[in-house]
């Protein structure tokens, strides 16, 4: 199905091609931000629906990737905040901790984090404020440049550095494993 949308500047966008081209990257980012594959898929679908409804706000079709990342990150931040709130509520009412999100797939090679470390990273990110967790994930786990992280989060470069600085300060000890210490 070919769906053509019109950007804010009146330029035609092949929306179905955009969905096809960008979904893999967006799903990877979503999975790293949410650490849950099913939620990630839903988030990406929501992102495309948002984008379709707001296609008039896209000024430059060449910036579609950054635009989609921004929509996704904003949605993911809201999702993380809600998830944290519900976890608190469950804790308050004595339902115990929420189950750990499923680790996204088995580790295929030696460079990849061990399951133990992955669990430690998940716990560490869960404990961070949503914006710090998002900045950390986009920068270190997704490997985006600082400028791209800023674009995705809709904040300035300096703000991203502040979030990263705080996240790294919180990380001390949380992720340092014996294998790294001499």
């Amino acid at each position: 199905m070919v769906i053509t949308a019109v950007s804010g500047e009146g330029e035609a966008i092949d929306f179905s091609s955009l969905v096809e081209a960008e979904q893999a990257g967006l799903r990877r980012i979503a999975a790293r931000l949410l650490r849950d594959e099913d939620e990630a898929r839903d988030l990406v679908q929501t992102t495309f629906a948002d984008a379709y409804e707001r296609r008039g706000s896209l000024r430059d079709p060449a910036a579609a990737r950054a635009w989609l990342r921004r929509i996704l990150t904003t949605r993911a931040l809201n999702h993380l905040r809600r998830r944290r709130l519900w976890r608190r509520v469950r804790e308050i009412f004595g339902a115990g901790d929420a189950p750990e999100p499923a680790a996204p797939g088995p580790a295929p090679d030696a460079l990849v984090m061990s399951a133990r470390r992955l669990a430690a990273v998940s716990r560490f990110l869960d404990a961070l404020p949503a914006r710090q967790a998002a900045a950390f994930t986009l920068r270190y786990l997704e490997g985006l440049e600082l400028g791209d992280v800023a674009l995705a989060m809709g904040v300035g470069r300096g703000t991203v550095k502040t979030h990263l600085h705080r996240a790294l300060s919180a990380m001390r000890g949380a992720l340092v494993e014996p294998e790294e210490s001499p």
Partner: protein
Amino acid sequence: MTPGRDLCERVGDALLDPAAPRPPGLDEHVATCEACRRLRDAHRAAERLVPPPARSAPGIGMDEVLARVRRRRRARAATVAAAGLGIALALALNAPTAPPRSIAGADVFALADAIRGYGQREVASDDPVLLAYAPLAAWLAPPARRSLDLPSLPVVPSPEIGAPAGGDSP
């Protein structure tokens, strides 16, 4: 701000942002500053984190996206309709109660005439068959109610049959 703290900030900037200017003596500072050394170590450890690749899952088709858009629009329309209904209901419930309808003077007079006509029947007077029973009929008839003969009721004089037009003129 102290010079040392300022230097720590610039070192932090340089560590986190490859595009930031590298302050002179960065390495010497990091070697002597515990906070900056910890930041550098944390940054290096974070850079070494390589997450596992995302699991392959069925792709998202454009039809799914459009279906979601349609669901949203329906949900929004339902929300707007429900809100409108709620507002209309609230307005209807809070509307001031209507004042008692005033009875027009004409209605009062018509009512009075009807009651008078019902209560002041002369049952047998016009019926030759019942004429013999007139006293009985008069006795059975409801009592004449004069209380409704209000002096304010307009009395339209009926013209006398055979009377000359123009009233009492000779």
